[in-house]
């Protein structure tokens, strides 16, 4: 059976859920093989986790040059693996850097690139949602090895045992790949909350919050659910929260199991970033707010009453 390569995303030795989703999805297309790209020693701590999600092989493409330069070396390392493995497809979870890696890889392999897939079948047909999920598109790669980026939360991760046989791949980063040097890495907000882009639950606040201090109402509700925190563009434009928290057409696109919109009217620009969420709950004082057209459950009321009550109720029910 042909191999399907999955690029592993890990932070501090912990593999992201999106990687397990892809290892699960890869089984539809062939035999899942994980690819670890990073500084020497990265793969050692990840192998056992990859075995639990069915990785038959773990390609290890490690080099001291990979972490020191932006994007290009990772694409070169992944291309080296693809050239060695001749896979049926390469799967990469969608995110700003990963899409750039995928793009460069596709060009190196003379292969078609499909980004932001939300599903695919065994014949290589890929489903994408465009124009704020108003249109569903079925696409196919017509040249080379399909390079596909998949939106987080598109597949449910399912454990399966895999041999996780380690296969070292030698990587030498070209001079062109060393053109953009990373001189400093700055962590601005390292909270305990999950990351917005691939969180299972997202709680977002909008203009109805009124001011920056009141945003703690959103944070408390999010923390009661173990959720990531998002915001509408109005809130970001007002400077109440950083731009990285913006959900919408020009911000982060999320597709969680549960999305709770608090004080968000639901302008097209916001809906485009969240309307593929599985379950949507809205709290807004305006019964005409467009967000209610999307909501599976909506409460017309004062968010300053409803949201804290919800936070308390969740706390009580969790005991």
């Amino acid at each position, binding site marked *: 059976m042909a191999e399907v390569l999955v690029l592993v995303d890990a932070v501090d030795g912990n593999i992201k859920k999106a990687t397990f989703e892809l290892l699960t999805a890869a089984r539809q297309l062939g035999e899942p093989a994980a690819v670890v790209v990073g500084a020497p020693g990265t793969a050692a701590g990840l192998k056992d986790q990859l075995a639990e999600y069915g990785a038959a092989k773990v390609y290890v493409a490690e080099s001291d040059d990979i972490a020191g330069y*932006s*994007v*290009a070396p990772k*694409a070169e390392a992944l291309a080296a693996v693809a050239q060695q493995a001749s896979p049926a497809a390469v799967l990469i979870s969608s995110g*700003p850097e990963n899409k*750039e*890696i995928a*793009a*460069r890889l*596709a060009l*190196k392999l003379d292969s*078609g*690139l499909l*980004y*932001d897939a939300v599903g695919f079948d065994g014949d290589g047909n890929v489903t994408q949602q*465009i*124009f704020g*999920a108003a*249109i*569903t*598109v*079925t*696409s*196919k790669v017509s040249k080379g090895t399909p390079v596909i980026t998949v939106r987080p939360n598109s597949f449910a991760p399912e454990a399966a045992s895999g041999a996780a046989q380690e296969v070292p791949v030698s990587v030498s980063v070209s001079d062109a790949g060393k*053109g*953009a*040097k*990373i*001189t*400093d890495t*700055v*962590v601005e907000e*390292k909270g305990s909350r999950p990351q917005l882009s691939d969180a299972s639950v997202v709680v977002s606040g909008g203009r109805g919050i009124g001011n920056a201090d009141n945003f703690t109402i959103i944070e408390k509700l999010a923390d009661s659910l173990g959720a990531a925190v998002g915001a509408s563009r109005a809130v*970001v434009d007002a400077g109440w929260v950083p*731009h990285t928290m913006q959900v919408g*057409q*020009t911000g982060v696109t999320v597709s969680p*199991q*549960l999305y709770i919109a608090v004080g968000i009217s639901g302008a097209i*620009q916001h809906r485009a970033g969240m*309307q593929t969420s599985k*379950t*949507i*709950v809205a*709290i807004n004082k305006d*019964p005409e707010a467009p967000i*209610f057209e*999307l*909501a599976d*459950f*909506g*409460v*017309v009321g004062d968010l300053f*009453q*409803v949201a804290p*009550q*919800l936070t308390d*109720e969740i706390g009580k*029910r*969790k005991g």
Partner: protein
Amino acid sequence: MNIVVLMKQVPDTEGDRKLAADNTVDRAAVDPVINYIDEFAIEEGLLLKEAHGGEVTILTVGPERATESIRKALSMGADKALHISDEAIHGSDAVATAKILAKALGSVEWDVAIAGSEATDARGAVVPALLAEVLGAPQLTQARKVTVDGSTVTIERVTDTGYEKVEAQTPAVISVVEKINDPRYPSFKGIMAAKSKPIDVKSLSDIGVEAGEVGLSNAWTQVASFENAPPREAGQVVKDEGDGGSKIADFLASKKLI
């Protein structure tokens, strides 16, 4: 310094965007506008010119009608434009677009090429990286800050948890995120001046691109079909009677979400 801003004309997000019968974006269905995020790229180009001197050239690959958006960019203060327009470009994928942009850049002098991080129609956010790959030029993308010192360009690249400082030598490909600056509105003087600024329109053969490398039939991916997504089933909306929060909790429990 020679600054090139890559600008795309897109259908307005506020409109009812559609695909055409050949599965490409229906550019007639909705009024075209400058890709919103490219406005920040234009502004960044103008700021660099103000700080370091030189010229700002708008580079657009797109149909004839893109002239309207090019004029707007010129009215913001850009000096001139290069418009690659050719019927054979219709339906090109991101890879082909990057190849066209690379050849177009080969026909001008440039130190930095600045794009918006993504376009609001395709949302691929891949063309700047592809362009860097085609050119073998350094990739400085997802920038929330750009600093130029001689031939060294340093950016703050946005990451999930903060930012990275990334440094490269010119010529370099840059993409900027929205909010990097505050794009200016065209002044009346700027609008009048834009009418006489030069727009160089070139075909594929003018810049040395074979028609057989680009376009719908030569794309490396194909759209087989599309359908309008079914509208979400209407949910339940209740008025808060003092128990709105616990009603939501009941709903979440019924869905096994808590």
